[in-house]
């Protein structure tokens, strides 16, 4: 079952959902709106090999906006720290973001229960589009789990800043 906006609010008050900073105006009927943070990450050229660490650079998103072209792919982060030890978060674009042709995640919308941090956005543009720091970009919904809970303790825990893939650790 999916939590309503008022239930999300209650669970934040109860400490069962983390959203920091929390702003009641970002609550919507079935989700909480997420803002874009301040950094973005771009991989360097070359064929990515998941068995190896691929080089990348991290930049500030200019206050005047970052222009993405169709086909561009980069990683960024939510401004908010989010997560829950009680509910499963799922990331979505805001409908307006999607209508501008921008993916905010690539294939993996599901966040592990117990994973707390700034979520990494996977920005993939299908049209030219500009993004700004602190813009309302995405939304997170929360879902009830069934069964005994095991909390996440994986390689992306407690991170801030856009996190590149760390698949090379799987092959270490």
């Amino acid at each position, binding site marked *: 079952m999916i939590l309503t906006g008022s239930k999300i609010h209650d669970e934040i008050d109860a400490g069962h959902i983390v959203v920091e900073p929390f702003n009641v105006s970002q609550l919507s009927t079935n989700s909480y709106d997420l803002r874009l943070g301040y950094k973005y990450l771009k991989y360097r050229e070359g064929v*990515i090999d998941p*068995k190896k660490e*691929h080089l990348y650079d991290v930049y500030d998103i200019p206050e005047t906006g970052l222009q993405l072209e169709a086909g561009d792919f980069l990683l960024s982060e939510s401004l908010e720290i989010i997560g829950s030890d009680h509910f*499963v978060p799922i990331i979505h674009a805001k409908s307006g973001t999607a209508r501008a042709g921008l993916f905010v*995640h*690539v294939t*993996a919308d599901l966040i592990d229960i117990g994973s707390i941090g700034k979520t990494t956005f996977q920005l993939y543009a299908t049209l030219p589009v500009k993004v700004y720091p602190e813009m309302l970009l995405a939304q997170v919904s929360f879902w009830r*789990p069934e069964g005994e809970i095991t909390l996440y303790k994986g390689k*992306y825990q407690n991170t801030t800043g856009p996190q590149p893939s760390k698949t090379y650790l799987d092959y270490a």
Partner: protein
Amino acid sequence: MILTRQKIIESVDSGDITISNFESARVNPNSYNYLLGEDIKVYIGGSSDGQPEFETVTMKDDGYVLHPGSMYLGVTDEVIGSSRYAMSLIGRSSMGRFGLFLQISANLGHTTSSHQWTLELHTAKSIRVYPKMPIGQVSFWTNFGAVKCLGKNYALYNSPTERLLS
């Protein structure tokens, strides 16, 4: 409701979930990491009637490089299914962070399906994939209402399967 790690393990034990070559080390807090099967279908152009045509490549140990701008069909190495739960089959976040889609907007796996799932691979960056690499994740969801199979189509296939015209 979405099943937790513990509930997934219990459901595999009880037979409510089928995952071949199941390894408990690959169960996440609320999903299971599946592996990429060795066959990939590569788009080679349209046929005279406009339908896409694919050629099957069987990967060797050094894998295969996917490039942006195309779409490839892969397959899960495992048979995955459930007669009790509905499924959502997506990529791992570690692959999404590289810009690799494992499905194109159709993540829903119907209750009662049990087979090797076709993957729709589309990549934003050139990337090498390897046979049997942990590439995606599947989650399991409780149903509300009586489960009744209203027909199977793609669930009858265990290899990368392109669109079938009715």
